[in-house]
Structure formats: structure tokens, C-alpha cells
């Protein structure tokens, strides 16, 4: 199975966590990161660390996980980019960042010129979820490229879903993040009401997590909800951006999204109040304030369901 050589571009917290899983599986891995020092630990664990994305051109399969469209274009079509070596390019490029439809399109055609196929493969989860082996991936692109890449995508965690050609996975990830926001607002509303009625958030979340409504997500957000820890895993600003992409898609497709539209307004209010850089689960205190309820951190020991 591990007969392909793998390259990795962009090993931030999330990327590094995924690289560790590939190394654990004994994969031949070379890594490029803009700040080289940040991937020294991957080198110590057996990865080859390279200076430019171009040095990954001879790998069979290369992953990108970068922050924005500009970075994605730079590491692929830029001067020292993956496609800057004439005649040498990977068979498959897998973009896990899926930052913009336009950038994907540009890179897809640059890749095609070098005989390389592009897969879109956004992920659901954070580094803690990766460590727990619970990450999921949604992929789209040419089906034969996907079949080749599948064993490696499966190493990331719990599973990979193939949803079709082109950029379809990007829309699915946007749908996923709409659901993330909607569920968070629903948790904020119901936890606030339960607390107003005298139920602690720890007790409420314990019950929800055991119930049919419990999920990996409700579990791992439980400590933040109980302890009021708003250290960002995903900021309000980022969630708002995904909601805007989702609402725009709804308008284009003629699909009404009333719940998403309302939650978007709650996120707008949260950002208007100055909480945009905090974790989006801040929605909880916004809701409590609207109800005239002052929340304080609870002492109870709670699990994130991941360890």
C-alpha cells in the first residue's frame, strides 16, 4: 500500500498533526514549511525537510495545507513552486486547504499542464481530533486519482468520503461549517435555557452527549461550554466567512437557508461586540446576555470525549 512517495506543503498545527499520522504508518514523507524550524520535530521523526516546494516535484503525491489563496498559488504556481520544474511534477496534488474556488481553478489548470491531477480534500476536525484518530475527509476530483490517493487519505483518521468531480468537496465543507454554526447556536440557546431553569451546563452537556443528539462535536466543545474557555479553535471571523460563502451559494442555487441566515446574524452580532477573534462558541455568552443571564465558569471535571 505504501508504495507511493509523499510530499507535504504547509505543516502548521493541523498539517503537522496529519504528517505525524503518515510517519506513524511508515510513509516516505518529505515536508516543506515556510518556517523551517517549525517542522524540525517531523525531521527528527523521519521526514525529509526541504527548502522549497519545487524540491517536492519528484514526489508521487503531494498534499497542500496552507492558509489562504495567495499562499496556495505561491507554493504551486510561484517561482519556487511545485510546478516550477519543467518536465517533473507529482502525479497527484491533494489540496486540503480548499481556500477559494478561483485559486483551485487556476492551480487545476497549471497542474494539468504538467500532467498532474488535482483533488480537493478538506478535512473536518482539529489537531486534537486528529490525535484521537477521529478526523474525517471529504474529497472530490478525478475518480482514478482519488482511488490512488485513498489509502493515504484513510491514514488521517476515521474515513474519507468521495463526493464527485471538481470542487464539489469545497461546497460540502461549506455545508459542514454551516451545520457547525447552527449546532453551536442551538447549543447556546438550549444550554442558556437549561441554566435559567437551574441546570448546570456540565449536567446539561453530560446528558446531551449521552443522548441521540450527542456527537463528536458536542463532546469536544463541552469543556469550552462548561469552563467558558474561548481560546480559538476556529474564530468567529472565520466562521462568518464560511457562512457568507454558504449563503451566497444558497442564493445562487435558489435554496432558502433560513436557519443559517439567522445564525449568520448572531455571528455578525458577536463580531460587532468585539469577539471576532475568539472561538465561535462565544455564541453562548451572547445568547446568555440576551437572556439577562450572567454565566460563570463551572468547576465540574468534564471530558472532551477525545482522549
Amino acid at each position, binding site marked *: 500500500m505504501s508504495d507511493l512517495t509523499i510530499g507535504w506543503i504547509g505543516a502548521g498545527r493541523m498539517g503537522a498533526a496529519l504528517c505525524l499520522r503518515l510517519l506513524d504508518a511508515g510513509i516516505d514523507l518529505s515536508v516543506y514549511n515556510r518556517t523551517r524550524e517549525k517542522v524540525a520535530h517531523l525531521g527528527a521523526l523521519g521526514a525529509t525537510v526541504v527548502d522549497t516546494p519545487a524540491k517536492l516535484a519528484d514526489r508521487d503525491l503531494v498534499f497542500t495545507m496552507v492558509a489562504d489563496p495567495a499562499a496556495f498559488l505561491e507554493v504551486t504556481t510561484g517561482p519556487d513552486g511545485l510546478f516550477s520544474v519543467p518536465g517533473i511534477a507529482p502525479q497527484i496534488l491533494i489540496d486540503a486547504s480548499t481556500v477559494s474556488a478561483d485559486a483551485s481553478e487556476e492551480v487545476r489548470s497549471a497542474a494539468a499542464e504538467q500532467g498532474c491531477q488535482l483533488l480537493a480534500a478538506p478535512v473536518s476536525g482539529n489537531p486534537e481530533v486528529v490525535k484521537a484518530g477521529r478526523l474525517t475527509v471529504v474529497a472530490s476530483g478525478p475518480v482514478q486519482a482519488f482511488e490512488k490517493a485513498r489509502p493515504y487519505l484513510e491514514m488521517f483518521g476515521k474515513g474519507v468520503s468521495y463526493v464527485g468531480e471538481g470542487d464539489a468537496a469545497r461546497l460540502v465543507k461549506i455545508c459542514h461549517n454551516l451545520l457547525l454554526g447552527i449546532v453551536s447556536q442551538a447549543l447556546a440557546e438550549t444550554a442558556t435555557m437549561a441554566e435559567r431553569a437551574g441546570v448546570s451546563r456540565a449536567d446539561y452537556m453530560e446528558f446531551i452527549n449521552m443522548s441521540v443528539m450527542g456527537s463528536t462535536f458536542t463532546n469536544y466543545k463541552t469543556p469550552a461550554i462548561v469552563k467558558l474557555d474561548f481560546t480559538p479553535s476556529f474564530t468567529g471571523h472565520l466562521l462568518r466567512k464560511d457562512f457568507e460563502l454558504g449563503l451566497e451559494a444558497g*442564493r445562487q442555487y*435558489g435554496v*432558502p*437557508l433560513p436557519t443559517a441566515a*439567522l445564525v449568520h*446574524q*448572531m455571528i*455578525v452580532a458577536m463580531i*460587532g461586540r468585539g469577539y471576532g477573534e475568539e472561538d465561535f462558541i462565544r455564541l453562548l455568552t451572547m445568547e446568555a446576555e440576551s437572556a439577562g443571564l450572567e454565566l460563570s465558569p463551572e468547576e465540574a471535571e468534564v471530558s472532551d470525549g477525545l482522549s
Partner: protein
Amino acid sequence: MSQIVRRVAAQIGFIGLGDMGQGIVRRLLDAGHQVTGWNRTAVKAADLMARGMAWADTPREAATGSEIVLSIVTDAAAVRAVALGEDGVIAGLSPDSVYLDMSTIDPEVSREIASEFTAAGLTMLDAPVSGSPVTLAQGTASTMVGGDRAAFERVESVLYDIGSKVSYIGDSGAAVLMKIAVNLTLIVEMVAFCESIALAEKGGVARAVAVDAMLKSVVASPVMGYRGPFILEGNMPDKPLADVTLQQKDMLLALEVARRQGTPAPLAALSNELLNACRGRGIEHRDFVTVFDVYHLLSGMS
């Protein structure tokens, strides 16, 4: 500088002869003003030229020699195109004349364009008009003005020839912001009207009776008066006052301003999604009160 006095014919340049533009020019001609008009496509000018409007080949030419220049076009890009550049209003306007843009665009863009006029020693005001071709013809359209107050006072009398209600709102951009706020209510109000009629109809009140009762009630408004009856059987006009897509453009502006300011606008957001349902059902070419059809469907009446 001299007041451009009411009932004295003014030399007016006019840019953008869509439905609203044509209605405004008609009122200006009827009030005795000299109008020189420009439109991207000349065909829309024929009727107005027969009534005495002169034709200009560029926005610059429409502005040259005019005491007042008005424009009303579709979006921010179109305003930039007619206002700025070699053939734009800015190239023909004289320093003691006043340019008023009546288009509904993002207030930030309006301020940017106005500051280019200021930098050139010229005056631009934002002057959106609230109303439809119907209210214009009745003479009851309302104009709101943002920008230099002294310039507003000089052109005020001509604005009264367009419609009977004229208000100074505040600094540059304030009037388009207000127009966007007004249109937010307009859309939410008409969606709520459809919701109410569906409620009454499903409960057994004949639709025509329900509409009539609404229009006689305290919630009746001018827009409800002329648009509400569209939802009666066979009453939907072939040519909408504003179709779903056009009306939604204003709602998207409102949501964008709300987003930027951090002002939640949940009712606007929900109404906008009901307009999206019209798109999904393929009825977005109708006047936006066709949202009633969505309620009719959701409540199992069709």
C-alpha cells in the same frame, strides 16, 4: 452662489433612463426644465425626446453646461462608469453646478466617488429616491440627500419637482445608507404582508377580503397599497415594479452594511431567504411580492 429657484427653468443633465430615470425626467420636463439626457442604450430615450429632452453622447456632454446633473443607474460599477473618467460627469461638470447620484449603492462607494469630486473642486451629493414608477407619477416620491448642506439647499427646489417629499439626511453617504434602511423595511414589510394574508386565507378569509382589510388597517402603507393587490388572482403585472433579483440587490446591500457595522439584521436575513425560495422555484422574474406563492405552497394551499 445663487439659489436655483423653484419654477424657474433649470438646465439639467440626466444620466440613466431606466424605468425610474424615465419617470423622473418626465416630471422634470413637465415642470418646465430643460433636460439633456444620456443612456447606455439610446432606444430608451425616444419617448422622452419626443417630449423635448435633448440627447447627449456621453455623461460628460450631459454635464457640460448643466446647473444640475442627476444620475440613476443599476449598481456601484455603473455609477463609477458614468461619474468618473474622461467621459464621465466629473469631466463636464462646472464648479458652481451640483451633481446628485440617485442610485442605490453601497454608502462607502458613494463616499469614495464623492471625494473624487471634492478633490476636483466639484460637488457631488447622494440623493436616492424612495418610491416606484407609480409613486413618481403620483408626485409623491421621496428624495433623501446626503453631502454638503449648502449645495443641497441650492438644488432643493428642483427636487420638489421630482416628488413632494425631500429631506436632508446628513453627510456624504448618509442618504444612501438611509435608503438602504428604508428598503430593508419595505421588503420585510411586504414579506410580512404575504405571511399575514396566507394566515388569514388558510383560516377561511377570502384573499381579496383579507387584502382589502389589511389596506384599511393601521398597518397600510403606500407600498402595501400599490403592491399588495398584486397577489390577487390574475393581478400580478407582466412587467414587475421590481422583480425578485432587483429587489434582492437592495437586501444584499442592507445585509452587507449590517455585516460591516456588526448590526444584526435577523428579519432582513430571513426575508432574503424567502426571496431565495422564489429563485429556487423559478419565479424570480415576477414582482417580489410573488413571495406570497412560497407561503401559499408552504401552507399547503397550492
